[in-house]
């Protein structure tokens, strides 16, 4: 099978090698067409966003207003901070020029004169790798003022790397824009959508690193070729990051729709010690986990995973064997979301901390059965009721771990102790209730 993003070419990250292998040809091709034709090509290819929401990329581009006197921007989301996700990193390291070329095409398609690649601050070495590639591309005239000479046409754009400073929520597209503006990374309320007004109040498109890196190949080989790879509803190859209890963890580029079991056993070498799988999170830590007995026949694409009761997310597959303590796994996950909650809206700000404290108590062996109901209740109230998706990301693991591994959680808690009656008497609503009633 042919790989689009991480082909087996040695030193592809070097600009010469990239050019020798047909690099920076797609952009020349693209610039010979109109921006609308480029958008159309991408639209028809069926390329979907690889950042989690799997939105149609071409369609997103077409939302950008045509008649505006404001500058337009492209933001490339490389903030991948979701535990279990580490795919964009591979592109920065092994194929940065595909990303850069993709950006120049996307900028042309939406007529943006500037693109910001947002990379999380923790990615020190990968920032340097992309910066090197970008410097080379500038030096060769593939980016910046010299583009018309090098690439033909009259279009030129600039690409800047914006380094994060440690905030998961900045992976949310509106937070990301706030962060680029030098502000606190608070998500914005939608609508308005970024294409209406995003960065500095100007029309903005935000795409994931992996999404954009597909674009040169789509232009080179045409939409039809691309649309035939993998699952038709979610075509192309995906980068699957497999981690946890597998023999060969790593990033695998495979056509969408590959069987989850194949990914784990055929590519990632199965589970060490041939242990049974207790749990797999198929799309990064926020996605609903699947039980070991739910994996058979599950295909890795947006629609199939949805049908299986989970979601593709960022394609980060985390495998946990039969010996894993899921209470503590969930507590870990909850810790992450509590720590990364931005603090803007109530459910996420207060709910994540409460869930974490409750899970820690259960993990310490001090939990009671009512704690499980409490967790479910808090998660239910968070889900769907926050400004951005971080609330859902925090609520789903709690909701689905407890739902799908109820037995294990039941075992971890003690039976309910009766609540001190005094509390209830002091409660304003219940003062009218006879004491006998309360004691029941």
């Amino acid at each position: 099978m042919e790989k689009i993003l991480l082909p087996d070419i040695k030193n592809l990250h070097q600009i010469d090698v990239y050019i020798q292998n047909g690099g920076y040809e797609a952009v020349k091709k693209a610039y010979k067409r109109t921006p609308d034709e480029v958008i159309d090509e991408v639209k028809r290819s069926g390329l979907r966003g690889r950042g989690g929401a799997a939105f149609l990329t071409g369609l997103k581009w077409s939302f950008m207003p045509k008649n505006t006197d404001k500058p337009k921007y492209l933001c490339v989301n490389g903030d991948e901070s979701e535990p279990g996700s580490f795919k964009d990193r591979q592109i920065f390291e092994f194929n940065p020029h595909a990303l850069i070329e993709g950006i120049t095409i996307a900028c042309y398609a939406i007529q943006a004169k500037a693109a910001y690649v947002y990379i999380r601050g923790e990615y020190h070495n990968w920032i340097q790798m992309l910066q090197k590639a970008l410097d080379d591309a500038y030096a060769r005239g593939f980016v910046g003022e010299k583009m018309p000479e090098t690439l033909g046409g009259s279009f030129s754009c600039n690409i800047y790397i914006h380094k994060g400073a440690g905030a998961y929520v900045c992976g949310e597209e509106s937070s990301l824009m706030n962060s680029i503006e030098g502000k606190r990374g608070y998500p914005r309320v939608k609508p308005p959508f970024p294409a209406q007004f995003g960065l500095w109040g100007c029309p903005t498109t935000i795409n994931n690193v992996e999404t954009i890196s597909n674009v040169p190949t789509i232009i080179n080989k045409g939409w039809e070729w691309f649309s035939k790879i993998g699952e038709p509803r979610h075509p192309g190859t995906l980068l699957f990051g497999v981690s946890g209890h597998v023999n060969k963890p790593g990033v695998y580029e495979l056509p969408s729709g590959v069987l989850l079991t194949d990914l784990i056993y055929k590519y990632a070498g199965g589970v060490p010690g041939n242990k049974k799988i207790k749990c797999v999170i198929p799309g990064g830590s926020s996605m609903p986990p699947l039980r070991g007995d739910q994996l058979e026949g599950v295909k890795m694409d947006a629609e199939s995973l949805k049908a299986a009761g989970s979601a593709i997310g960022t394609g980060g597959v985390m495998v946990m064997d039969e010996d894993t303590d899921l209470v503590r796994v969930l507590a870990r996950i909850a810790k992450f979301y509590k720590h990364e909650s931005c603090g803007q809206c109530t459910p996420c700000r207060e709910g994540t901390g409460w869930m974490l404290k409750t899970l820690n108590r259960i993990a310490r062996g001090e939990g009671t059965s009512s704690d499980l109901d409490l967790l479910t209740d808090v998660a239910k109230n968070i889900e769907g009721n926050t400004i951005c998706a971080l609330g859902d990301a925090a609520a789903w693991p709690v909701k689905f771990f407890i739902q799908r591994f109820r037995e294990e959680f039941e075992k971890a808690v003690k039976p309910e102790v009766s609540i001190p009656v005094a509390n209830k008497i002091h409660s304003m609503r219940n003062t009218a209730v006879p004491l006998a009633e309360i004691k029941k």
Partner: protein
Amino acid sequence: MAKTAKITVDGKTYEVDATKNLLEVCLSLKLDLPYFCWHPAMGSVGACRQCAVKKFRDENDKVGKLFMACMEPIVDGMIISIQDAEAKEFRKGVIEWLMTNHPHDCPVCDEGGECHLQDMTVMTGHDYRRYRFKKRTYKNQYLGPFINHEMNRCIQCYRCVRYYRDYAGGKDFDVFGVHNTVYFGRHEDGVLENEFSGNLVEVCPTGVFTDKTLGKHYTRKWDQTYAPSICVHCSVGCNTIAAERYGLLRRVQSRYNGEVNGYFLCDRGRFGYEFVNSPKRIRKPLRKNKETRQFEELGSEDALKYIRKLLSDSKRIIGIGSARASLESNFTLLSFVEKQNFYWGESDRNIQLIQKQYDILRNGPARTPSLRDIEKCDVVIVLGEDLTNTAPMIALALRQSVRQEPVQSATPYRIPHWQDQAVRELTQDEKGPIFIATPLATRLDEISETYRAAADDIARLGFMVANSFSDRSPLVSGATDEQKKLSGKISEALKKAKRPLIIAGPSLQSEAVIEAAANIANAMITSGKTCELCFTVPEVNSMGMAMMDITHQGIESAFEALKNKPADTLIILENDLYRRAEEQAVDSFLGKFKNVIVLDYLENSTSLKADAVLSSGSFAESDGTFVNNEGRAQRFYQVYDAGENIKESWRWLRDIMLNSGLHEFGKWKILSDFTNALSKAMPVFDGINNITPPPGFRIAGEKIPREPFRYSGRTAMFANKSVHEPKPPEDIDSPLSFTMEGYRGKPPSSIIPFFWSPGWNSQQAINKYQIEIGGALHGGDPGKRLIEPKSGKTPAFFTKIPQAFSPRNGDWFVVPVYHIFGSEELSVNAPGINELTPKPYVMISSEDAGSLGLTSEKQIELEAQGKTYSLPAKLNLGLPKGLIGIPKGLPGMPEIKTGSWVRLKMG
């Protein structure tokens, strides 16, 4: 209502304003829906998630989905439910979250009993704590003398930071930290710099920001006695609620008036009230012992007898009125001494200027806008006024008007204007056009284009703009390039304006500035455009004085008049003459009288010179009427009965008149008798008697209580004096009672003593008093506009253009520097305000200082009016060459005339 829609709420169909959001609409329908982060003056951000309601797709949708009401635009045919079980459960859950870290310290919290968080908690029914972990705690900050900080109570609604930064334009306050440890405060401890910080107290839904001045003499909301009042600390006339217990004024809060101050007050208005409790208060009549020259206290009867004695052998009595006294008090003094002997206790110069402003408004075509109108103006020109320091709430209003134009850009995106965050993202830092021409930098400079110049040059700029609209306003010759460029730009902006506004005032003591402002407005109107014209005036009732049928002669005229025709008795009404004229002149003036009688409430240099002092009531112990700069007559009522020794000045004066045998004044018994007599004598005040209901007004046979019905301790309050509960004082002047007995429903809008509604104990109960949220009060916003423009008449244009200012070698031209904290006579006696009052100084431009070899803080000798003063220098960047800034009214600061020339010597 602009655009209406039909919506169904819990099965009932309503016709509502389609431009509002669902939360506002529900609240306007007087439905109870809890909320925190939304504020009617600040719009929606959807942060707290408290106002969730169920929204159904159509009639067949029985499941529905939760939406935040504050973020939902009204759509015709919308079906929602507030009572839906899931929605209720969710709202209860939000409170449960907010309460996880809340300290539940209501018994020791100053907000307790008037806390929006308490109210909302009870409203949602959250009553049982499932959170069993430690709470997070914070360190608090010192924020200055006005605001107490208690972060542990915070529920992170973000209202404070949105108010302080986005609404009031403050920069030294923000949100820090992340996730559930976000912190609201300053970068480091220190006095909040914004002049409107006190509103944090009312904006905060719980006890994070509380009134520190109240805290020093704390009393629960339900234990305070309230009255509708008017702020006396500038001419804007913000509506306030003043509160008392045990004869001590406890605090001042904003009294909502949709046309005037809305929800807010400035810090001088909110915290200046403590002058009422000052040790300098005159609480009993005083007689000066002829031998010892010391004051002796008298009872009120004895005082009247003494005054009668003084007056009995008087041949001619001179009366000096005051712009900080009510219309009624001035009118009574006028009636006593008669027109030819009555002087408005203001400098002749100021009177000319104020009178000119009044004449322009009275005879011209330009309308004088209310504060609310100012907020809606989209292009504003300010000539000569440092509004933050002379009329602070106008400055706050301008911070809203600069958003008028940018906000329009949201319309094509179909983003409703109440969607605050989105609108701010779109408009970024865009500001609508506002131009400010003043000698000194002002706080509003950051939102405006500025012009630094002396008064004459400011006027010239104004005349240039006026001339660009009409040739009838004369051409300005010899304009500088800067003036040409700027006036061109201003004209352009005015041409595009939908609702332009010109603001000017008497601060620079320049007629030309006022005339230029009038010419712009008149020129625009004659060229077929609209234009409003706002004038500030120095004091709370200056406009009222200008409107009175008096000789409009000032202090200097009184000095002069006395030379020709001696008099033996002087009655000074609530006025410190030493603030109006030079010390020597006042000394010599006072020395010419055999008897000097002062009516006032604070000891001052004038009262100390008096032979007899009558203890007048301050605004807190008086009823009366003021006319604000807009020309709006507004009534204030006494908060509490201060006993027989403290009376309204008009009542003292009436008693004096009766005592002197002027029996015809015996029919003036209660406030409305005085007001009626006034409007009969001066038709310009026609109708002011009706701005509040008459004293006989009753609802269901009852008076309106000044006290909440949970007022406690009444039977024991005076038990230290007598175990018998005294008969409550009676209020013969108003339909308000001094107790908690009375009608429990909503009173007429002009006599609301406090805002309260069942389940709504905080100031947010205002919702229940408004027809529509953020709009007018039920029954209309209080006050009566007395000045309306004359349309159809061709306005007169002013034709005298001043010469350009030219600096003199070795002499400096005095421009005034006003301080919100310090320049006003009364508030400076409030300890908090006093703490922030600057020490005397003079301000020199950095350029001049350079040539003089002067550095900051260095003492310099200033020669003015034949005297030499030694004062520290402050350097100022923007001040034009040749001007010197003299702070006005600061304690210890000599009065140096604006517009005079002074000399400097290095100390």
